[in-house]
């Protein structure tokens, strides 16, 4: 169940846009911030607040990789797997993180601390390789930085 605050924020988004369909992506961000991920139940709640069909919401949730359809750990690590990052060591970083955490792509550690995802371009090719932890960017990442990062994030 969405918190009353999240509900309230989604309600207020309805006044910002011309149609409720346009408020969908911001509303899903609010819901995901509130719940950590977007369960089918959460999606139905958003649909009913905005007066949209479950199909209309599901199409958007499944289209955008920034919306999580499974529960994620406290720290969601997303590593870019596109060209620039791959040329500059991104693939090594991916393997390093996966080996260290013992995770396949998309999996979460038992203790709920980390979720690992490889993703398409993060839009920062000039500072490749790039990864994101939750909303924060890490640029020109080295293997040493990854080790340190995994230690620091509790």
């Amino acid at each position, binding site marked *: 169940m969405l918190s009353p605050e999240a509900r309230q924020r989604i309600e207020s988004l309805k006044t910002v846009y011309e149609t409720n369909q346009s408020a969908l992506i911001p509303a899903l961000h609010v819901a995901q911030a509130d719940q950590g991920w977007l369960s089918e139940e959460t999606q*139905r709640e958003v649909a009913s607040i905005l007066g949209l*069909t*479950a*199909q*209309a919401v*599901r*199409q958007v949730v*499944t*289209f*955008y990789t920034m919306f999580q359809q499974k529960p994620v750990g406290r720290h969601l690590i997303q590593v870019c797997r596109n060209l620039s990052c791959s040329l500059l060591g991104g693939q090594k970083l991916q393997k390093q993180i996966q080996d260290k955490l013992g995770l396949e792509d998309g999996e979460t550690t038992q203790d709920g601390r980390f979720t690992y995802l490889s993703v398409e371009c993060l839009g920062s090719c000039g500072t490749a390789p790039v990864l994101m932890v939750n909303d924060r960017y890490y640029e020109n990442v080295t293997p040493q930085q990854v080790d340190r990062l995994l230690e620091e994030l509790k």
Partner: protein
Amino acid sequence: MASVKIKVDGREIAVEKGTNLIEAAKNAGVAVPHFCYHPGLPVVGVCRICLCELEGRPKLVAGCATQVEEGMHVITRSAKVADARRAVMEFLLIHHPLDCPMCDKGGECTLQDYTMLMGPARSRFKFEKITWPEEDVGGKLVLNKNRCILCMRCVNLCKEVAGLDEIAVLSRGEQTYIGTVDGRKIENELAGNIADICPVGALTSKDFRFRARPWELTNVSSVCPHCSKGCNITVGYHPRRNEILRITARTNMDVNQWWICDRGRGGFHFLHDPKRLLAPARAANGTSRPVPWKQAILDIAQALRDIIVRHGARAVGVVGSGTLTNEECYLTRAVFKDGLGVSNVDFPPRPQPEVAYKKFTIEGDKDPNARGAALCGVAPGASGLGVRDMMRAAAEGTIKALVFLRGGPLDLFGDPAIVERALQKVDLLLVVDFVPSPVSDRAHWVLPGVTFAEKEGTFTNSNGRVQRIRKVLTIRGDTREDWRILQDLGQALGVLPVTDPDPERIFLRLAQAVPAFSGLSYSTVGELGAPIAAATADVAVG
């Protein structure tokens, strides 16, 4: 509507403003290939196979999403266009399986046709294809996502014609697929149209799949008998098996546009009901025995005559049917009303809840020809009784003979207790029908008629449009077309001086006798029907 002059492949034509390039080219006799475009659905422009060249413009444009402009020169055949289309085909075929020999769409598949037409014959894709299991998505459809090219016709049919968001495009990139959400199934009664318009074998009809190859079928134009809308249909018939295997929508912009409902689509299995009545039968003392037609007709005529001689024509009640053709309704009136002077002639209405989808309505009258029956005079004559009153009169003993041209459940004709008493009490109970019913079970005489697919004739829909049904199946057993039965009875009763060898000539007689049909003939009715005369449209005769 303003028109503009354009050229299509060098040929000059005038087309209406607002027309897209696909339709404009069609007017010029040029076929532009398309998957996602459908004249009855919104333009989505996703398949990209309709790319055309416009003279003076550097880039190709999508024929579906581009409207004509004055002086435009559309080039649909050039090296540039061919290259682009071949590239689109190659992309569409990347994940498409090479399973045409076992795909139910094989032989009527747009993707297969275009591949044969413009290649490429070989794939350069060397990686593993994405595969999905087959899935029941409801709507009597099976979804095979491997074959889907994501044209979105199914999504838009549900959304725009049914007005329901029941199937969606999900995920993104090469993982994109269509599907239902939350395990729900497609429930709208127009979903069967998806099997007609799916350009590949992704969504196929559960009812028809693997029953036959499309080229084995003979397609016959007819009209749906399941409500008063009169949707135009194509009946797919397997000649060797003498069996109807499917019914699909036939386009008629004045009636059903491109669509039919699933009741009509699936509503042919009753034709092959093993309980069909196959021979004339006389029932007495709890047993029923077959009687040759000639004998049966003579005996029934004699029995009817006796009752009229003894009790007058008022002692006879005739229950017609809004499922019979105009020709048969006309004969009902000619034999019983005009011939024998029976005024107790009527037929029972068969209402059903109307279902109004966004752009298609299933009408609230189950009979395909209620309008025609009324126009042709299947209605009480001067001081004649309606169906319910006939049942009461028969239960009280004033009506001695009841003729049902179609049976049914007892409550179709009135209070079941009264109908029961009426059927038990009459001296003569004749039922003409193609399947047994509680009425025929109680009859003294049962004559086996035929269904809409075993005879020629016309129906008049609720809007007053006269349309032809066609004989598709060879008559089974010792059954006889209802128009023939009525003529035989009329002859034996001595009230029909001349008979006709076919419904076409009966129709000409009807057109002379009934003002609403004045001037109509099978040739003017044609493939798409013709409206009855407007001025007389609502005047019933009889």
